[in-house]
């Protein structure tokens, strides 16, 4: 066997072991991987650009050349869904990543030090949490204006307190563990204890929450675009497609079914991944 | 005649390598009014053996062979409903953590009363009187007030007393006590052990199967002792003779490992190695890799069960006629 084959064999072995430990994580992760690849490879997967109109075939039903049919401008729905995924996934990953960068250190510090620092960090978070997420996002979209990055930012602001809470709760639990006390007795600094001892043992619920929030981000992006506060036409977005397809629901149901299904698949993928993560991060085993 | 007669009990656990015996060919008897200590280190199968008799096993365990006769009935062949009734009426259990037997959301009085109403068919008033009497018997002061308290309001020792009150409420013929004092302080442990002895043995002539890792507890309250190692009973006998003259090398090693007054510092006898897990049990006698007296035959053949004197039994080649 060549070195490559050995490497491949090992990877497959690892995948199989992982699957045995947590089927949902692998199914969810695999689903998301397929969707992401399809989104990135969209130009090569469909012969039509998402904005290319074909006035000879408006509202055409699913066919070999247009698997998901066309819309009222004769644009290929499959191509638009795949390009829509680019927006959805970018918003999902971007908003959660921004939120994680801010929220993990805040939650860690609040949970580890507790007392007054905890209050200083958590009370403002409570204030943000007091507003329903959708209201806050709508308000911020109105305030910041429209656009992809601004939407990510708005979602990130909504997400920060949620992740801070999860991180804080997990850190609080781990900070009381005996091995943390032991590390302190052996002279480890607070920073070292937080990074080496608390964080690795407290991060799993944060990743689970992050995964769920990515799914919600896709829904929120769709909702915002649907009501006209998200991505602007003609950029393809799943929410926008739903809004536009609504008028033709009777004649061309595929216009709403395709983006609707696309949203369901992505959210399902993130939720499965979130469900499966804890099983993967059980007690560590060596080689 | 014995009250309980367990024969050839084998219980298996599901592991990554398939079903593996946690308890192998375990046989013992228990007479009315007798306390039998089932001792061994963690993982030796002592709890599994006792839980098998009650058929209280999880989904990852199954009884592969054996019988457990209580009177004329084989517990292992009974259907679940009949067994459930039996568990309340004639058999009862207490656990290491009394909280597992108590519902945290219901007052302890309700819990005791519920048990006696269900199994003894008493009305509310009679059940309350019975509950009060039981609380007094297990030494709970101010029982009227304690009836309306919740489990979390009790210390470990008090909770164990309440568990004991529930366990004796229907005058069981047999009590299985699974490490009932392991989580308690020594002074409280002594109180609970004394209660078990008076309430069950002296007053009710019930039989007690006491699962413990503590040889001191065995010496103090048991009549007979069965020593388990790696799923098998290696030695059985009355407590005095087993402690005075342990026949199996494992029993001897366990006794020698106890810190006592006579031993010099840093000179405690130890057993090299560790208890084998479910999936790496050695062939032949499971103890042979750690045994100072091991012979070649120990690695290949199961040691025979020998009865060197009345009431004593040991599974070791050292005690066979040619050994």
């Amino acid at each position, binding site marked *: 066997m060549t070195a490559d084959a050995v490497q491949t064999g090992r990877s497959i072995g690892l995948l199989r072991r992982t699957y045995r430990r947590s089927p949902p994580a692998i199914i969810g992760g695999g689903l998301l991987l397929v969707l992401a690849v399809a989104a990135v490879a969209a130009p090569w997967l469909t012969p039509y650009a998402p904005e290319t109109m074909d006035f000879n075939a408006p509202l055409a039903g699913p066919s070999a050349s247009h698997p998901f049919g066309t819309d009222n401008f004769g644009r290929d729905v499959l191509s638009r869904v795949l390009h829509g995924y680019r927006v959805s996934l970018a918003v999902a990953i971007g908003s959660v990543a921004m939120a994680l960068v801010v929220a993990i250190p805040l939650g860690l510090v609040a949970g580890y030090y507790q007392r007054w620092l905890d209050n200083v960090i958590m009370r403002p978070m409570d204030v943000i949490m007091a507003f329903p997420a959708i209201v806050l996002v709508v308000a911020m979209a109105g305030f910041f204006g429209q656009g992809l990055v601004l939407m990510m930012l708005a979602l990130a602001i909504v997400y920060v307190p949620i992740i801070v809470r999860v991180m804080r709760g997990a850190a609080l639990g781990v900070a009381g563990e005996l091995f943390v006390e*032991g590390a302190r007795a052996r*002279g*480890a600094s607070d920073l070292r204890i937080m990074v080496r001892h608390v964080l690795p043992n407290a991060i799993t619920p944060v990743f689970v929450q992050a995964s769920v929030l990515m799914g919600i981000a896709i829904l929120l992006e769709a909702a915002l675009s649907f009501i006209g506060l998200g991505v602007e036409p003609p950029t393809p977005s799943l929410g926008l497609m739903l809004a536009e397809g609504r008028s033709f629901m009777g004649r061309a149901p595929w216009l709403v079914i395709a983006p609707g299904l696309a949203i369901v698949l992505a959210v399902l993928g993130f939720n499965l991944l979130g469900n499966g993560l804890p099983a993967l991060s059980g007690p560590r085993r060596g080689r | 005649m014995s009250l309980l007669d367990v024969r050839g009990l084998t219980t298996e656990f599901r592991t990554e390598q398939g079903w593996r015996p946690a308890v192998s060919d375990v046989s013992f008897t228990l007479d009315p009014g007798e306390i039998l200590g089932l001792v061994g280190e963690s993982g030796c199968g002592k709890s599994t053996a006792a839980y098998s008799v009650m058929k209280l096993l999880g989904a990852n365990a199954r009884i592969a062979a054996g019988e457990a006769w209580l009177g004329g009935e084989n517990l292992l062949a009974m259907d679940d409903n009949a067994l459930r009734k039996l568990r309340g009426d004639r058999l009862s259990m207490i656990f290491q953590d009394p909280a597992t037997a108590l519902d945290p959301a219901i007052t302890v009085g309700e819990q005791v009363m519920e048990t006696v109403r269900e199994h003894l068919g008493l009305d509310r008033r009679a059940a309350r009187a019975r509950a009060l009497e039981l609380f007094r018997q297990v030494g709970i002061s101010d029982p009227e007030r304690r009836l309306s308290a919740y489990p979390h309001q009790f210390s470990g020792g008090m909770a164990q007393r309440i568990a004991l009150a529930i366990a004796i409420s229907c005058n069981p013929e047999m009590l299985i006590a699974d490490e009932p004092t392991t989580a308690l302080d020594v002074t409280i442990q002594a109180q609970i052990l004394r209660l078990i002895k008076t309430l069950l043995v002296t007053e009710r002539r019930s039989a007690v199967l006491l699962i413990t890792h503590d040889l001191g507890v065995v010496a103090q309250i048991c009549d007979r002792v069965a020593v388990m190692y790696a799923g098998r009973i290696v030695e059985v006998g009355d407590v005095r003779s087993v*402690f005075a003259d342990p026949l199996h090398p494992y029993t001897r090693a366990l006794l020698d490992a106890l810190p006592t007054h006579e031993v010099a510092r*840093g000179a405690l006898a130890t057993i090299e190695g560790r208890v084998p897990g479910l999936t790496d049990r050695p062939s032949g006698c499971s103890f042979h890799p750690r045994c100072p007296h091991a012979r070649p035959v120990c690695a290949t053949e199961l040691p025979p069960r020998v009865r060197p004197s009345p009431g004593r039994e040991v599974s070791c080649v050292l005690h066979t006629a040619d050994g």
Partner: protein
Amino acid sequence: MAEPLLRLDRLAKHFPVGGSWIDALTGKRSHVKAVDGVSLDVRQGETLAIVGESGSGKSTLGRLVMRLLTPSGGQVLYKGRNVVAMNRAELRQFRRQAQIIFQDPFSSLNPRMRIADIVREPLDVYQDGARADRPGRTEALLERVGLTAAHGRAYPSELSGGQRQRVGIAAALALSPELIVADEPTSALDVSVQAQTLNLLADLQASYHLTFVFITHDLGIVHHFADRVAVMYLGRIVEEAPTETLFREPKHPYTRSLLSAIPQPDPTKRVDWQLPEGEPPSPVDPPAGCSFHPRCPHAMDVCARQAPTLAPVEPGHRAACFLHQPAADSAPQTGMQS
């Protein structure tokens, strides 16, 4: 006599219980006196056992010595310097010389670190010796406690309870400390493993001239392992004596009942347990006077009014009991509790 390595001087730790911050401001919050005025000396090279049941405050005492908790009062003097008043740098140096081993081998090791990294961490924290030497030193430490380099590559979940406890011991030894506080190091272990661990500790003590503060609930182990014993009840030391003396002539009624409650592994010596009545009272609301008096078979009137002090009954043997000392306000009267 030489200065003790460790001296506890009227050490106290009170934990607030329940109540909100408003109660705290108005002084309504009650306190548990987990440790209530403990004075003790530990000499270089000796093993002092601190024995007590749950709620006696023995583990809190161990954490106070290590300054894992800040005392509410009193001093911890290590080689004459007050640990309580140490600044960050001094504390860091103190923790090089004093180490703690915990009871629970399951939660005392970080489940996400390899064994070798756990043992090595103190060396990294203190930048002790050349970096290149540390893997070798780690391996030597593992071998010293009876583990191998292969164990070093494993995660804690792959080791047995006894092996994990050895890892905790190896990590505590890494910086060659002088003082080790061992908080119930064997109570979670099986008998045979407990014996191995105790032997290892005794062996290490001999080879490194360690001083041990050995916290335990198990008087049986104490007899085998300790030079001196201090018995704690509800935050106070009720008796302190050389081990042999304590076992031969226990003075305090609590010590006596504790000794009689140990189940002796000898069926020919079945004891008629002299048990204290009832449960230990709650440390939130301890009885007035001597806190043992409601359970004590010898309680006198004075015991309910006055707390006895820990006073010498013989050279090197102290007890806090009016049976062995005159009460301050009146002569002891026999007779008794309501």
